[in-house]
Structure formats: C-alpha cells, structure tokens
C-alpha cells in the first residue's frame, strides 16, 4: 500500500487557562487513505472539531500547546512555516462548517467569494476564475449557476449555501475535504442531498473526506471507517460494519442506543441514553474517562487508562472489558433494539 494521505501521530492539543489545562485533544493517532471517507463521531466537547482545526492549522498557537505529528502526503504540517501552510490550506486541504450562513461573507456575491478563493492559490485571470466558479456551482447542483453566482448569500436557502460552500471547498481540487457537521443545520431531505453530493464529488475528485458529526445515525451510509471520540481521546476505531454490527466500547453503544430509529416498527421502545454529561476537559476523570457514565464499570476502569488496542484486524477499542464480555453485551443488550 502506498503511504496514507494523512497520518496523525500522537496529536495533543492543550489549552492552558487560568482554571487549569484544557486537554481538548489528548494523544490521538489515525490515518486516512486517498478515496476514503472517515467519520469522526462524538458529543459536543469531545475534541473532534479541535483535532481537525489543528490539522488545518487553524488553532491559535499563542493559546494552544500542540504536540505530535500531522503528516500530510509525508510532510509534517505542524513544522511548516505559516506561509507554506497557507498554500496547503484552502487548496490541498479544505474544510466546510456547520453553519453555512456564518461561513459566507454577507457583503460579497457568492461568485466573487469563490473567485477570491481560486485567485488566492492559482494565477488565473478574474474571468477564468469566474468561469471555474460558475462551472463548480453547476457541478454541486445549483440551478442557473451564472445568475446565482451574482447573488448574495442571503438570497440562497440553507441547502444552497452549503452547496456553495462545498463548491468553494472543492473548486481547487483538494486531496482532503473536512466536513464539520455539514448537515446538522439542514432539513433531512436537504441533508440527504448534501451527503450524496459529497459522496459523488469525492469519487469525481478522488479526494478523501472526513465527516465530523455527533449523530451516528447520519453517517452509516457514507463512511468507510469511523472513529469515535470521547473527552479528547479516540475510544474506538473501525470500519462502518465494525461500529454498527460489532461495537466494542460502551460509549459507542450508548451513542447507538440514543438514536431514534425510523425502522423500529414494534412497540414503542424507550431510548437508552447515556446518563450524565460529558466531563470537563480540565478535570478528566482518572482511569477511563468514560467510567463515571459507564454502566459496565469495574475497579480497574477507575485507575487505569485503557489503551486503544486492536481486537481484530484494524478494529480497535479502548476498554478494559474482555472481548467475550464485549461481544456478549453488544449482542444481548445493544443489538436488541436494532
């Protein structure tokens, strides 16, 4: 196999504050191959967004302490000078955000904003850039793209704005697209359209995609691999089938059991939410960070931090339960609902 597109090794992002050090990301490692879609799942404050903002070079280095390596096509991004990072960001590696209204500038026409993104990275004339922008708007499914390019963001609907964001992100043919909750603010019908669009464009551009979300329900159809994050750590990693049919971590079980399922046709069943709230990232519980909320906790969990260990192939989970117990509990209790 060729070298991975992106390899992250022991990434730590800590923010010292007057109350203590916020360990937003604490020793996270993973790889993404070309053409892969990686889902990154976790609750608010699990460190999923900070991980990728750091990879994009968007964390403020004055306030954050960053350690580890981020190898993008073999180059460590954390060691790159700011100017070189700027060249990569927005052209080879791009990011779209949850709220498309706040990520587009309200004073400038959508077409002009895409032209600006193109001309920052490529030496083309304004006219050529505008042609590229209009062509890209057409490819993301915006009707009458030449007229639409001359409109302002407020004239677009929510789904249209997210399409425009995707157009801007993909116009320079990036190798990696990071989508941070790209559909959370959208209706389900539009959500389905946008996710399909990302899938299709990924094929066309032969890019890799990272899909960050809090909802395991959304990504089943679209991800090859899934990484579950909790309190700044990766707690489970595996293929989509591993996660949905054979999850090994009680936190993942909790996420799966919290989803309201349209395909549940029997008696009204109660959801089984994860009790309590995610911990403060300043005072992360000792041992396994999930232990205060875990229904299967035992003594070892309270003192010893579980490592993210592969159980079979590349499926890995950070949990002290024995493999036999995990498989039994998953089958008996978690799959019950499915």
């Amino acid at each position: 196999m060729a070298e991975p597109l992106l390899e992250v090794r022991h990434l730590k992002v800590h923010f010292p504050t007057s109350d203590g050090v916020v360990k937003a990301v604490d020793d996270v490692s993973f790889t993404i191959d070309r053409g892969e879609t990686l889902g990154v799942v976790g609750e608010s404050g699990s460190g999923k967004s900070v991980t990728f903002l750091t990879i994009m070079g968007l964390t403020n280095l004055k306030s954050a302490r960053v350690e580890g390596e981020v190898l993008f096509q073999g180059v460590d991004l954390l060691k790159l000078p700011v100017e070189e990072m700027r060249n990569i960001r927005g052209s080879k590696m791009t990011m779209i955000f949850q709220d498309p209204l706040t990520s587009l500038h309200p004073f400038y026409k959508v077409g002009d904003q895409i032209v600006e993104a193109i001309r920052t990275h490529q030496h083309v004339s304004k006219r050529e850039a505008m042609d590229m922008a209009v062509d890209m708007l057409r490819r993301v499914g915006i009707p009458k793209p030449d007229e639409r390019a001359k409109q302002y963001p407020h004239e677009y609907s929510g789904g249209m704005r997210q399409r425009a964001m995707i157009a801007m992100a993909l116009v320079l043919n990036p190798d990696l697209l990071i989508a941070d909750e790209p559909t959370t603010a959208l209706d389900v019908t539009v959500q389905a359209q946008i996710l399909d669009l990302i899938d299709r464009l990924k094929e066309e551009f032969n890019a890799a995609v990272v899909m960050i979300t809090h909802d395991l329900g959304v990504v089943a159809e679209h991800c090859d691999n899934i990484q579950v994050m909790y309190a700044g750590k990766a707690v489970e990693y595996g293929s989509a089938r591993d996660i949905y049919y054979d999850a090994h971590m009680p936190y993942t079980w909790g996420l799966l059991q919290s989803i309201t399922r349209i395909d549940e046709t029997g008696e009204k069943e109660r959801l089984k939410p994860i009790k309590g709230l995610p911990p403060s990232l300043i005072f992360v519980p000792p041992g396994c960070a999930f232990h205060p909320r875990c229904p299967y906790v035992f003594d070892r969990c309270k003192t010893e931090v579980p490592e993210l260990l592969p159980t079979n192939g590349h499926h890995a989970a950070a949990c002290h339960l024995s493999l036999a117990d995990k498989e039994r509990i998953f089958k008996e209790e978690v799959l019950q609902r499915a």
Partner: protein
Amino acid sequence: MSVQVNERTEPQRTADHNPLIKIVGVKKHFPISRGIIFQKKVGAVHAVDGVDLEVYPGETVGLVGETGCGKSTLARVIMKLYDATEGQLFFDGQEYTGYSRGKMQPLRREMQMMFQDPYSSLNARKTVGSIIADPFLIHKTVPKGRIKKEVQQLMELVGLNPEHYNRYPHEFSGGQRQRIGVARALALKPRLLVADEPVSALDVSIQAQILNLLEDLQTEFNLTYLFIAHDLSVVKHVSDRVAVMYLGRIVELAPGNTLYRNPKHPYTGALLSAVPIPDPDLAKQKKRIILEGDVPSPIDPPSGCRFHPRCPRAQFPKCKEDDPQLLPHHEGQVAACHFPLEDQAVMEQAGAPA
C-alpha cells in the same frame, strides 16, 4: 431484524372521547406590504393554508415537514400567539378563536409551549428559579410563600438539581436548559403541551434523555402532546399519529408505523427515504425518492396539488389543476394525492415473510 405486526395501541376514540384540540379550516396569512408612508398590501405569505386537525386527550400527534412548511406557525396559531386569518379553534369543545387576551388567560393554564432553542428562550438575566416561578406569579395559582418549594419540586421532576435554584441559564448545558423549558411549561399543570422542535438543537445522547423525560411526564400527568420536528425518526418515535405538512397544508396523517410501512403521499415517501438509517446494510435496501429543488415560495403556492412541481409521480394536467383532498387509505390514514404510492414503496420489509 424482527418485524412485529402489532400496531401501537391507539387512544380510544369513542363518542365520549372528544378531541382536546380541534382546529377547522385554519389559515394564517401574513400580509406583505410595500411603501413606507402609503403602505399597501401587495400579497401574502400563505404560511398555513387550510388545516384541519384533531388531537385527542393523552395522545401525541407529531407534525413534520421541511423548513417553511408552516408547522411552527400552526403551533403558534393554536396557542393563539398569532390570530388565525380564517378558521376555528376549539379546546375541549369550547371555541376560543376570537378570545381576547384577558379571556385567553385561564386557557393558557391548560396549554403550554416549549421551544427549540434553549439559548434564546430563557431570559439570561433571570435566575432559573425565577424563570420557572413566572407562570405562578402571572396566574397566581400558588401563594407566594410556597412558590420556591413548588419550583424546586418541578426542578427535581425534570431532573435538575433543586439546589441550582439561584443559578443563571448560562451555567447550564443545552440539555439542562431544555429541562428548564420543560419545567416552566409544566408549572401550571397544563393538559396540552406544544413542543416546537424541542430536541433539534441537542446532541443525540442528550436528545434521548429529553425524549425519555417527555415520555415519562406524559404518563405521569396524562399530558397531550403536539410535537413538532423536521426529523421524521424523532417524530415517529414519540408520536401515536404523525401529520406531514407541506406548504401550509397537511398532506398525510397516519399512525407512525403505517406511515413508515405504507406512506401514500409521494412527499411522505421522499421524507422517509431521506431519513438516515443507522445500519449500513439496511440503508442500502432503501429505495430513494430524491426531491429536486427547494420548497416553493408560500407567497404564490403552486396551483392544484402544491407538491406537483417537485413530485416524481405527477401526471399532467390533473395534478396541476385539481387540488387533491385528504382521502382515507389504511386504518387511521388519510392522504391528499391523486396517484398515491403503493404499499411498501419505500421500505422493503427486511426479514418479513414475502
């Protein structure tokens, strides 16, 4: 994947079981005016355009639809936060369409509302205790000396720590704020709770906590819910019956499982096929009905069936000229479509005998 045939037990609908809320032919049009000094009306946003709905005591009716379909406007009309342009509203058999503010006051005790955004629906300058106490002060149902005790009981009921009485909303997380919203709505022991997207702003794990809480409270206080959301899977989970709205009209109304198995309106089918399924294999079996474009403008809704410009099954000229009526299909199911979907048009019954 086991498939059970039993339907959810539906509330009895006998003669002595009258609807708690009944609305007939309700319309809400917002005028659009031009000009600064000499304002004249140039059109209207047809936000709600002829809706009939009955909600029976103890049941949960879900209202689902895309942004801009009029579901929140309908909720506000029912609560009389907006006055209906046309139509009649009944609460427990009593018409309240033309009630004045003062006359509405006692009725407000019976019907309460909770909102989507737990950040903007709570006054940031007031303590949680005084936010929840407000209904008591306004309606004077509890003597002043006992208010604090009542509030703390409510806080406990919704799973908040009563000692946090003097904290401010910013000290709570999104899910906890939504619990404050529930406590405030329940303060007057209402019979009807209108919940407008109560969980859309929350993480899934917290969503599940709030949905369970609402379910528990319903059993405990025999509440009736009108539950509004854009997410069909959430609506189906909580509701006995689900109403699907499109451009100001109800296009289909059915028990949740019927709607899931045998949707009749193509719009329902499209909504259903867009709902993500947390199961990679099952998701692949689903037939997709992809909708083109966005919801048309409610200022000038399409003629005939409002869905015809986006409908994959539309036949012309019938759908463009003839406005379909709600007609019965399966038990408890009505749909407004000239060419309804066949049974199981969206979901294959995985594992079910053929």
